[in-house]
């Protein structure tokens, strides 16, 4: 049974459709990356999963229960780190951590002290005086020092320095090893690549891509720039080769990973002098997804043309 399952989720705020038929499935024991540009509905989805917002239609289940009706029971089994942590200004960091832990049903004191040390956080300072990064650390320490089945992390590392980012990644691996499930919403794609087993990409309240990183990579093309002794011909006839362009005497093209072999076979005949091949990063995948669709959406004529072409 999936830990999180969302089907056709719709949530509107006034006239704005924040979620428009979103699907999401997170299996037990996996670290699931949740990606999307600002305003695409990530935080709204997470708030519905936490029973803070009530959805209009569709279905959302967390750990087999209804997040709105069974909120309190569910919250004993999950920990949440918001993207923009705000704390009670007159409490100290240590007090805030203990309060969150206790409200959640108890925390592991030994882990708490260890995490404070690892994240280099001074618990005696007032929350009012913390920087954004330090407030984020308070929420992370509070979440990771409780032993729960599910961690919901909404852009948890925004404001952390690279050193702390590394500590954070270690901690995510630790809780994964302990068997917990993690939903990680993030803009740091390197972090997602390093940690996540599977990712879902959403846009304008809908899921546009979901799968393991390998699967997603498979869907994307490798960018190749090649300089040859003689002008290359016959590329258009090759399967899986796209966007061939000549720029400053070099050939730029994109190729589907499955057809890389055929491409190299063809190029070799023209005397390769230099070749760079850039495997698709998550970032490219992400940008491609948004870049392409945005162009289409911004330009009704080309969108019209595309539709006409497929007909």
């Amino acid at each position: 049974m999936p830990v999180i399952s969302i089907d056709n989720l719709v949530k509107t705020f006034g006239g704005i459709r924040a979620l428009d038929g979103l699907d999401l499935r997170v299996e037990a024991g996996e670290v699931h990356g949740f990606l999307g540009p600002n305003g695409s509905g990530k935080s709204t989805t997470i708030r519905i999963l936490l029973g803070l917002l009530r959805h209009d239609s569709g279905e959302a289940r967390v750990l087999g229960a209804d997040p709105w009706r069974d909120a309190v029971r569910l919250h004993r089994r999950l920990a949440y780190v918001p993207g923009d942590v705000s704390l009670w200004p007159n409490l100290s960091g240590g007090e805030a951590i203990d309060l969150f832990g206790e409200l959640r049903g108890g925390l592991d004191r030994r882990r708490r002290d260890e995490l404070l040390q690892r994240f280099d956080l001074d618990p005696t300072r007032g929350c009012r005086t913390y920087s954004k990064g330090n407030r984020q650390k308070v929420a992370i320490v509070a979440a990771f020092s409780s032993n729960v089945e599910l961690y919901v992390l909404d852009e948890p590392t925004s404001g952390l320095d690279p050193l702390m980012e590394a500590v954070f990644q270690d901690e995510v691996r630790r809780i994964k090893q302990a068997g917990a499930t993690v939903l990680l919403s993030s803009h740091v794609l390197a972090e997602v690549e390093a940690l996540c087993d599977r990712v879902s990409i959403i846009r304008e309240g809908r899921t546009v891509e979901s799968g393991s990183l390998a699967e997603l990579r498979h869907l994307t093309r490798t960018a190749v720039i090649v300089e040859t002794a003689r002008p290359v011909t016959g590329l258009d006839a090759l399967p899986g080769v796209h966007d061939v362009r000549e720029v400053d005497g070099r050939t730029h093209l994109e190729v589907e990973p499955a057809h890389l072999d055929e491409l190299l076979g063809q190029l070799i005949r023209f005397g390769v002098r230099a070749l760079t091949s850039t495997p698709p990063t998550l970032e490219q995948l992400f940008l491609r997804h948004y870049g392409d669709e945005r162009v289409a959406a911004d330009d009704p004529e080309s969108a019209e043309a595309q539709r006409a072409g497929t007909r």
Partner: protein
Amino acid sequence: MTALTGTRRLARLVLRRDRIRLVIWVLGTPLLGYALAGSVAGIYPDEAARQGYATTSASSLVARAFNGPIAGTDVGAVVVAETYVTLALIVALLSTFAVTRHTRQNEETGRAELLGASVVGRYAPLTAALLVVVAANLAAAALLAVALTGAGLPLAGSVAAAGAVGGVGVAFTGVAAVTAQVSVTSRGANALAAAVVGLSFVLRAAGDVLGDTSADGTRVESGWPSWLSPLGWGNQVRAFGGERWWVLALPVALLLAGVALAYALAERRDQGAGLVAPRPKPATGAAWLLSPAGLAWRMQRGTLLGWAVGIAVLGVSMGVAADEFNAMIEQNPAAAEAINAMGGGADLVDAYLAAMLGLFALTIGAYVVQALLRIRGDEADGVLEAALATAVSRTRWLGTQVLAAALGTLALLLLAGLTTGLGYGLVTGDPLGEAIALGGAALLRLPALLVVAGVVTALFGLLPRRSVVLSWTALLVFLLLGQLGAVLELPQAALNVSPYTHVPSVPAVDPAVLPLVLLAGVAAALLTVGVTAFRHRDVPS
């Protein structure tokens, strides 16, 4: 001067942000003044009535303490005595809150940092706020002068009276400029400024009580403490009683001194910092803190302590004054008759004590609103979201806040009754007996305050975004109905809107159970509505 670069732009921003508040302020004060002047003039139409009013006011220390020194038998003098203190307090608080809102609150929220990084001089935000608030005070004063003249009062006196009210606003603008530099939080800055307002009130009351009565018995010359109080200066202008125009220079001087001090402090501190360095706090949460109730107590205790100190001081003074009131009545049968007509009770001291307890109940209403609106602040900050993502239900979270506010109210009411009784008993020789009797009488006000709590809770549940403004508005309406409803001769149906109207005025009358039960029922219904609505709405919204 580069330190002021961008002031005009920022002033426009202040005007834009406060366009509705400022209009209400600038138009509301004169309108209130006009309405009050008209009805007071109607109540005291002839010289004989005003003569009686003036001699009573001058001989009653209670009237001096609450209405200030009477400046003769002109209609205007009576209007000033009846309205000046209320208007001055309103203007003083409006001015301080407005200054804090556009200075310290911006720093607290981080907005000032964004502004400070743009082409804006160091003093520009403070200067812009002060300019707008002073301008609002001047505009309101000018309109008030027009309104008073329009109500048929002499021109010179109208201008002086309006200047007196405006001067209070200007003076406290200077005070708030300083408190906004001292405290790190806007709440703290407002509390400090409000404490100065309170101190001014006490100094003025003391000076006016200590003052001398003129030979004809219709004027009071205040003692020296009144001259230390910006609230007192307004009375010293003596509008409608031989105006002393030079006194209007005092608030301007205080404003300039405050602004100079504020600039000096702003120069010496970092943005976002106050004047007190932060100390290390506990590294771990004490066991009592780690629950919704513990957190509520932790959040409330400072506020409660401040309220408790204020109420205790005021309670004892009111109680002691009650006996003095008794002595005054014995000397002055005419005054006794007048007050008897106003109070309505058989025993005049009991009527006085009941009125004082009613005033306390109104004031404690502000505590109720303040305490309950904290949860809305938490929601707007985002911390409520984090709290509700833990294993605590919404009902428990909100219920705990309501319970904490109710217990705080109970404690403050009890304290108000006990200290008033203690003060009265100390003079009459039965401190314990009076304390117990008035403590019990004070507790009868609890159901009305629970209705206030219910109103705030219902607004928080149903209209969260508007709850702050609407809650304070509701309390203000209750206050105006209670304090001025009778003066304005409003119909009973309007007065019935306020829960305070339904409280039996113990000890002046015998306690009645039915209205208390009904009030409690209304409170319970409102609280249920609020909690239910909160359970079914989005957080944050």
